[in-house]
């Protein structure tokens, strides 16, 4: 009796991937399994082609692009200020961070000064976004490994952060709060008391999460000793952020190349030792505490003053001036119809997003539209490092490894 498998040509569907899988896959000796793009634990629409020897992952080939949005091309057709709304939707857990890197690039091009109060408000926004992103990561990562209740706890706290975003910007997620030259508006009077209440409350919540996970034997069994990556490999593969710090490299852009008044804050850079999933978890949990430290200092030292630059060529005049100043009306009209024209040039700016180095390469040709806006996104680079992290581990561990690098597919596909 001839079985189907004898007639089946194992090599044919693997033709495009044949230099990525081992020879045993071509003869059908190892199993090639498709995971995704619709899979509950791939955090969106990631597709993985896995070559398995029994339950051991021999090769892992990520396939992305299922969320390719054409943001970079679309931004070229919009004016600088209009293209800002696209950056929000790129990495949808780090909205203010995306705004920030894009605005920093414009400000570097135009040599625009930002007042200190705006810098502090940006830090508050960026750190709250980091908390928000880490909470979603913690909830979903724990749920992937099997701890369901943490998801509910994390989202409960996240709602409070989103309420604060709504308070300052009118939107829960896509805030577009950080604008070239400053921020959109000053904070409302009830924002700071709400933030203080949250800051008083939140340390206890982090302890609560830790009692559920950190010393939990099940959690340790599922996370310790898997997804190892050495510091040298991590640097060579371009890893940054908590993924790099989990391997013991204390590189944080907020410390190394301070931007937006981060040099005025006192905080530590947590690092791991072993470079495994558990260490990356510990680094992120510690980062929650460090973000709280930064927020506490920012609330305490928040200076008074203008919340956006006074440069009328780039920043619209305040509403109150429009009634009595002809010049303000002209500037307002010119800004909203023509946009501004930064000088010709190319800049690269990097900031520390919750996932790692987020860079913006902006090319201006002197027109009101960006000639090219390119984003160096951490998820994209970390996904290319995923094969190196997952080879040799069990397929059940793979879910934990994907969760530990904290990918956002919108960030990676753009």
């Amino acid at each position, binding site marked *: 009796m001839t079985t189907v498998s004898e007639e089946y040509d194992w090599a044919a569907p693997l033709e*495009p991937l044949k*230099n*990525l899988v081992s020879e045993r896959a071509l003869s059908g000796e190892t199993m090639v399994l498709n995971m995704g793009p619709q899979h509950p634990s791939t955090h969106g629409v990631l597709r993985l082609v896995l070559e398995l020897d029994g339950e051991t992952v021999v090769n892992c080939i990520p396939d*992305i*692009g299922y969320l*390719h949005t*054409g943001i*970079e*091309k*679309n931004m070229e*057709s919009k004016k600088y200020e209009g293209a800002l709304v696209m950056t929000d939707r790129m990495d949808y857990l780090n909205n203010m961070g995306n705004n920030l890197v894009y605005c920093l690039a414009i400000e*570097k*091009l135009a*040599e625009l000064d930002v007042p200190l109060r705006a810098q502090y408000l940006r830090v508050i926004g960026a750190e709250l976004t980091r908390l928000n992103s880490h909470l979603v990561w913690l909830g979903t990562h724990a749920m992937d490994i099997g701890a369901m209740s943490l998801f509910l706890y994390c989202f409960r706290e996240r709602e409070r952060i989103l309420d604060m975003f709504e308070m300052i910007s009118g939107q829960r997620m896509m805030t577009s709060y950080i604008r070239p030259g400053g921020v959109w508006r000053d904070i409302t009077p009830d924002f700071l008391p709400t933030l203080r209440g949250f800051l008083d409350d939140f340390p206890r919540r982090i302890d609560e999460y830790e009692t559920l996970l950190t010393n939990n034997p099940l959690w340790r069994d599922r996370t310790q000793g898997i997804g190892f990556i050495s510091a040298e490999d991590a*640097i*060579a*593969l*371009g890893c940054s952020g908590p993924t790099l710090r989990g391997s013991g*490299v204390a*590189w944080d852009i907020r410390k*190394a*190349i301070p931007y937006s008044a981060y040099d005025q804050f006192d905080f530590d850079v947590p690092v791991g030792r072993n470079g495994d999933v558990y260490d990356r978890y510990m680094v992120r949990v510690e980062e929650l505490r460090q973000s709280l430290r930064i927020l506490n200092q920012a609330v305490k030292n928040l200076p008074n003053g203008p919340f956006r630059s006074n440069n009328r060529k780039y920043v619209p005049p305040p509403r109150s001036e429009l009634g009595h100043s002809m010049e303000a009306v002209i500037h307002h009209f010119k800004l909203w119809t023509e946009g501004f024209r930064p000088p010709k*040039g*190319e*800049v*690269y700016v*990097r900031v520390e997003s919750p996932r790692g*180095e987020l*860079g913006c*390469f902006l*090319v201006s040709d002197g027109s009101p539209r960006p*000639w*090219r806006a*390119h984003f*160096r996104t951490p998820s*994209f*680079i970390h*996904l*290319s490092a995923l094969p190196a992290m997952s080879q040799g581990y069990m397929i059940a561990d793979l879910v934990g490894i994907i969760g530990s690098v904290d990918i956002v597919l919108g960030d990676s*596909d*753009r």
Partner: protein
Amino acid sequence: MPELDSVVNALKSAFPDAIEDVQVFRGDTTVIVSRERLLDICRYCRDTEGLEYDFLSDVAGVDYYPAEPRFGLAYSLYSMNRNASLRLKLMLPGEDPVVDSVTPVYPAANWQEREYLDLLGITFTGHPDPRRILLPDDWEGHPLRKDYPLGYETVQFSFNYDEIAKHKPLAQK
């Protein structure tokens, strides 16, 4: 910046014929290199004492259409030890955009080069996995090129309702 001058001087003395230009804009140093020696220059930047650019942050591809040479590729390097950045840039002509892949020196370039293979149509010789990455395999054209249309679709108003509705047979439920 004296420190960056030493880097640029070291590069100039090591590759006298491959360094085409040095630009400084807003504190960023950009070294324009010729595409024939890119791999050697990258290896030199990574391995030489005093340069040690061990981290490839970003590869950015730009289409300067209709100018010629048409494509630009900017490699943002970073040194973890020295906390210093450097940008290498090369220009590629429009009719044969071919360049050596830097993946043997910087493994981080792997996917970033695939991205430009996909979106700009640049060929990277020696790339370990030259496939499209973001778009489907059967896609025609390279969307980030300036002569590729954005693909704008007209908005449905009352005057062109029927015309647009023709494309959406399933919406007529």
